[in-house]
């Protein structure tokens, strides 16, 4: 696997002390920057301001969670960060280059519903991004098998999506996001449709994969628990128009454990997010 070395050393140490410096080197492959991003919808002459003055600076290898009330535009923001949607103003840079169109070499995307192709097996779904660019059959088969093993699905290569559980589908989707080996992985509420037990264990899985691969992860969720459990840094967004109203450095040690959820520090973090969101959520 070709991963930049500073991230590798971080995953080796694991602990919070090994985090990348806060000073962002914007041209590093895993760096993500959002620069004065605004977005307005124009539906039938009615202009709605969806996102306002979004600024983000994400260092390589960080796990950043964007949280906010539903309808705050956090998913739209993520879609703009992947290059799938063009913002009205401002720009997004991944690895120092503007994201004007999707680029699977820089950013892997995992969607809300696993969005697997039901006519392809797990293996073929993971190979899909590679086959689009004409990677030779033997190479893409090996790479896809490798990623399926990484997400714990060894032995399930020949299964079709309808033969997999919700959590397994999302694992395949994560493997698909990783198969081109992009330095950045962006996930849009990936576990929202799963039951609570599965959601917690998938969170652990994602942390394990993140620690193993050293990717930069941008993760959108509406779950406070998920945000506090997973993140190095939490970005809290307001209700529409979505603005960033808080940035929280999560100082819980890694590896995170289920037991941490009952610590006072965890409760404080949750409360800090909740206090800001609850005033927004009702409006």
């Amino acid at each position, binding site marked *: 696997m070709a991963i930049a070395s500073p991230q590798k050393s971080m995953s080796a140490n694991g602990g919070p002390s090994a985090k990348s410096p806060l000073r962002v080197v914007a041209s590093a492959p895993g760096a993500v920057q959002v620069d004065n991003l605004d977005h307005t919808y124009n539906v039938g002459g009615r202009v709605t301001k969806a996102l306002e003055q979004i600024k983000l600076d994400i260092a390589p290898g960080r796990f950043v969670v964007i949280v906010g009330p539903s309808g705050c535009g956090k998913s739209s923001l993520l879609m703009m960060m*992947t290059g*799938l949607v063009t913002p009205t103003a401002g720009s997004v840079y991944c690895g120092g280059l503007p994201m004007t*169109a*999707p*680029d*699977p070499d820089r950013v892997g*995307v995992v*969607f809300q*519903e696993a*969005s697997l*192709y*039901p*006519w392809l097996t797990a293996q073929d779904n993971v190979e*899909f*991004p590679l086959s*689009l*660019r004409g990677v030779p059959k033997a190479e893409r088969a090996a790479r896809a098998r490798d990623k399926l093993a990484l997400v*714990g699905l*060894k*032995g*399930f290569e*020949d299964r*079709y*999506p*309808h033969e997999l559980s919700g959590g397994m589908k999302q694992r395949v989707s994560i493997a*698909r996001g990783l198969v*081109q080996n992009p330095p950045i992985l962006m996930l849009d509420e990936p576990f929202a449709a799963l039951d609570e037990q599965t959601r917690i264990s998938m969170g652990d899985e994602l942390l394990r994969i993140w620690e193993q691969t050293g990717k930069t992860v941008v993760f959108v969720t509406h779950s406070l628990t998920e945000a506090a459990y997973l993140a190095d840094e939490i970005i809290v967004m307001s209700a529409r128009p979505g603005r960033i109203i808080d940035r929280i450095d999560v100082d819980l040690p890694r590896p995170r454990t289920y037991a941490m959820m009952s610590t006072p520090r965890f409760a404080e973090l949750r409360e800090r997010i909740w206090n800001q969101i609850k005033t927004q959520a009702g409006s």
Partner: protein
Amino acid sequence: MANASAKPPAWLGLFDAARGLLVWAGGLAVLFGAWQAVLSFGLMPPELLPPIGDVLATAADLASRPDFQRHVGVTVAEVMVAFVIAVPLGIVLGIAIAESRYWSEVLKPIVFLVFSIPKTIFLPMFILAFGINFAQKVGFGVFSTIFIVLISAFSALDSVKSDHVRVARAYGATPAQIAWRVYLPSMAPVLLEAVRLAMIFNLTGILLAEMYASRAGLGQLIANWGENFMLRELLAGILLIAAAAIVFNETVRWFEAKCEHWRT
């Protein structure tokens, strides 16, 4: 986690196929049994319902006669040409209409309105326009078929999930790749259904056109045998056409079942 090697064994597929055949054979046995029962209880005179053995013998005899084969050839040619025109044309037109918001609003209601009209009432117009010939049969076949194909194409396009398109875009697919790798497989189950329904409409239209006015073809034979009270030939013809139609329909349905889970 579940056992990864819990795939159904291959012999189970054979077992299913055998069971399917058994059900078929059972159905046929019941039909032929009822047929013979009607005769032996005297519910129908043998002039109106000849014994099944005679009919099957006639069917075998017919199938070997070059003169009958020529009629079959005419009908098959008409059906194939109409099918090869109507299905691709309907699919391409249907997708083109559904992809454009403007043409959807203008043409979709018209297609649905025309679909509801029985096509048989237009047959005399086809005779006036084309005469009684190959082109008239094919034209009427296409006309009978194309509306169901158009409507199927509309719903085929609806069955393409925007999520699936977005995934392909996120992984850098070109428009052509999106068309072939996402649109086509997404639409395949609905399009297969369209092919199956198209053949039913097509066969109905062309046989009717042949029965109404024709110099050759199975429809013309059926009409003749009926008018001349040749029940053996008539029933043998019915059995042969029914068998051909069922074989086609079941073959397409087999493919449909293969990709049934794509619809999820």
